[in-house]
């Protein structure tokens, strides 16, 4: 089942100017491509979450640059870019008692929409979505987007 998880890179960042630039330039040097990106902001600090094509490398580069960084297993859900998709996903997971800790979405140039979610029960989430015929991304997909 592990292959259906996506390795998300999360990092702890204080809210201060120039910070994002440091991260971006570390990635540029290491030729790491960011596929999806979001910042959760809470007062003095924020948590930056990213899906990248080379998570191990990204982790190493950020760690070496002194960041507090972690790798988290999340799910990447491929959605049709039509109304009602998100509602369906939220509903089926809810029925199975799976809680979504957070979610963010991105759209690719092939007009596909992807939803990244972190859940409290990965196994049940994968099974539930699989039963519903909803396709999940793996790391191979992330690299080829």
């Amino acid at each position: 089942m592990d292959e259906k998880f996506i390795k998300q890179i999360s990092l702890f960042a204080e809210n201060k100017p120039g910070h994002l630039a440091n991260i971006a330039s570390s990635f540029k040097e290491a030729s790491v491509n960011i596929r999806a990106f979001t910042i959760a902001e809470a007062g003095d600090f924020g948590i930056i979450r990213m899906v990248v094509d080379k998570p191990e490398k990204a982790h190493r580069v950020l760690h070496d640059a002194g960041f507090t960084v972690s790798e988290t297993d999340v799910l990447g859900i491929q959605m049709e870019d039509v109304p009602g998709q998100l509602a369906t996903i939220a509903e089926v997971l809810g029925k199975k008692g799976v809680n979504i800790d957070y979610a963010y979405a991105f759209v690719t140039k092939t007009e596909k929409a992807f939803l990244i979610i972190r859940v409290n029960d990965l196994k049940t989430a994968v099974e539930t979505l699989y039963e519903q015929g909803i396709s999940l991304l793996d790391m191979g997909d992330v690299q080829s987007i």
Partner: protein
Amino acid sequence: MTKYLLCDNMIEYWNPQIERMPLDELEQIQEERLRHLVDYVYTHSPFYKKRFDEAGVKPEDIRTLEDLQKLPFTYKQDLRDNYPKGMFCVPDTQLVRYHVSSGTTGKPTVVGYTKNDIHEWAKSLGRALTSIGVGRGDVLQVSYGYGLFTGGLGLHYGAEEVGSTVLPISVGNTDKQLELMQDLGTTTLACTPSYFLYMAEEAKDKGIDFQEDTGLKTGIFGAEPWTEEMRKRMEDATGIKAYDVFGTSELSGPLFTECTCQDGIHIWGDQFIVEIIDPETGDTLPEGERGELVITTLKKEALPLIRYRIGDCTILNKQPCECGRTHPRIMRVTGRVDDMLIIRGINVFPGQVESVLMKIPEVEEHFMIHVDRINEMDTMKIQIEMNDEAFSDKVNDIISLEKKVASALKSVLNLSVGVELVEHGTIPRSIGKSKKIIDNRKL
């Protein structure tokens, strides 16, 4: 109480014979009492006997005030090392009270008092209160903490000594403070300067004018450092006279205040000997030079202190005061020789913060203490770095970690502390004694 007409001003003294005694006579009394003191501690306290023996001093070597310099210093650490009662000179049956101050690394310091000790304490404050015109007919609202802390009970006994009416309200509940202040006609308020400024703000919000709506005329402020600028602000804003009060829990809480001249705090020479020393070399400094305050107690029975290192920086002034009192004065305390912080009247050492953080595995050992004064209240914030392994990418987890650290600090420091997690590597690492405090208070 005796009244003297001096120039145009009526000056009152609690004990004029003692307070106006010529300095040479006062020093004679000090010498006699010092000789008695060294005999007393040498024979009653194994701690002092050992300390004197190690320093090669015998009680008979101490004949004059100059000989005081031969005696070894006593430190706060000695009180901790001999916790709880290892330095006491009287049997438990002689004790009538304990006060306890919070410990820096676990062990608190305990000070015991005999009946005479409590009375000497009240006498010292009785003279002080009289010197700022507080006596019979005054209502003294004691807004210092009561209990193990010496502030509340200290002022309480001093006020009763001079026949004032005490309102023992203790700290907090500002609405009640303002209500009773008006209803019972408080004339004198004793609290920390920052609490008074806070109270003044609250009063303003409620439309209470100190000059119009209360009978307040005198403030006794201490337990934390303040300045002449603050005095001016307080006096201008509220129309009261603001006086500095001095003491430490090891000596016996609040003991001395300024007189109406507002030019230094009188330290009663028949009860205490003051020295100012160079904190590095331990050498006694000449009068007028700024250094560390060292005090020897001449009358204390339960826990006499010989050359006790107070840790505050000040200047000694032996010139007779305009008020007619001859006892030496210490000028405003300008800081500490160690890294102790005073936040809202509570003593905080960075070592305490460190020992709390060491017990929380989710955070690193590096930290920075930020102190500020916001809306007249001291605030303290600790910045700490999160441990890599403990990092969760959920916002709530980080917020609960901050709360966990804050509550651990509160339980040890007895003070609400802000906690901010910062990125790894942001707290400066310095070689040797690292600078762990940024104090932005504009005093």
